[in-house]
């Protein structure tokens, strides 16, 4: 079964963010990878790109379809998980851990508080499915 860490915050678009200092690590949720199915490509932004909350950050493509990933918070792309480019299937295996997508230098840390908690997100996807 899936485990949604309590220390993460979540979006209704199925991204998560985990904040340490002024860096927010961003990924897609277990629920998202399950809905997408076998992931075959991951497109991630370039280092230094300024992203705005709610705007496209990249995309993941499964056998089934392409889906945009939206930035859960605003910030500058400080690190990119390049390992996913050659091993996109990691997103199906460990979406909340090793298969993080990018690290953002937070532009506005207060945005984080408005995101869903683990409990709220699980209620949300429970209601959705």
């Amino acid at each position, binding site marked *: 079964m899936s485990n949604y860490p309590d220390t993460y915050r979540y979006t209704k678009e199925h991204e998560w963010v985990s904040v340490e200092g002024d860096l927010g690590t961003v990924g897609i949720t277990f629920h998202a990878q399950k809905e997408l*199915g*076998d992931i*075959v*490509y991951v497109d991630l932004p370039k280092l230094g790109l300024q992203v705005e909350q709610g705007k496209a950050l990249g*995309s993941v*493509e*499964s*056998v*089934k*379809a*392409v889906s945009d990933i939206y930035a859960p918070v605003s910030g500058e792309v400080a690190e990119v998980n390049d390992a996913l480019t050659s091993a996109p299937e990691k997103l199906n295996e460990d979406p909340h851990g090793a298969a993080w997508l990018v690290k953002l230098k937070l532009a506005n840390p207060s945005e984080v508080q408005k995101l869903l908690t683990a409990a709220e997100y699980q209620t949300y996807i429970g209601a959705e499915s």
Partner: protein
Amino acid sequence: MVDFGGWDMPVQYSGIVDEHHAVRKAAGLFDVSHMGEIEIRGPEAELLMNYVSTNDASRLRDGQAQYSALLYDHGGFVDDILVHRVHADEFFLCVNASNQAKDFAWIREHNRFDAEVIFASERYAQLALQGPRALEILQTLTPVELNAIRYYWFTDGEVCGVPARIARTGYTGEDGFEVYVAPEQAERLWRELLAAGAPYGIKPAGLGARNTLRLEAKMALYGHEIDATITPWEAGLGWIVKLDKGDFVGRKALVKQQEAGVARQLAGFSMVGRGIGRDGYEVLCDGRLAGWVTSGSPSPTLNRNIGLCYLPVELATVGRALQILVRLQPVEAVTVTTPFYKRPK
């Protein structure tokens, strides 16, 4: 689950790739009860059948099936269908779920024969058991000698002790059966088939795998390769058109297009660059807009990205370099021979 023409349909169970391989190597079970059924009965059932469809129903014998199409007067597809001859005066049609009301109305509208057109979808559920082990699995649940049913033939018998129409047809490019039963029997049959198939490696399979399997086998999907704007000549389905059988709806337009020559044709492509050319993406040739993708997906069997597209006829030759606009980026592709996959004999 996704909403598919008003039906809640599973896209995947264990995963599209996993289900796809199960069908190619062992067996997969699909619940395709959403498909529509129409019956045509009466002394002139065959005349009506032949008048509304492109293939020649008079060539069928009792227990035989054929792939065919309903066309508009202008030659575009109303639907693609499977025609089963039960008796000389009874035909059983399997049609696309989203087209069933339209098909029924269309056939009735053209019924100037001594025949009755009956909407029968609510009387049938359909399970498709597909894959090289399908016969062995189904044989454990039926007294019908399945080996005796040839490809594109069917028989009425029993499965799990209940009446079933067992057709050796499918939409995956594999050997297999499509089993029609009363809806109230479907759930039990589903469970019994999965239990019987467990030792053979059966897996429940969803719409996602159904799509990748049919694409590899280059089987058309309504709304993608074929629709009201496409003719059988363009879709590479000339083999289901029998112009010599007499008049039928759409015939005049097909003759006219054949004389004038078709302008566009369905072609298979394989991606060269990184990316997947998906449904609706634009196709360029020498930098100019040349056509559009009708279906595109990773091919789990071939382990590369494949697809089908419409191209001007002069460009639809094998080995042509294309670029497909994948989210505004041109990605290299090349036309290839189809089908992408053919099962070993």
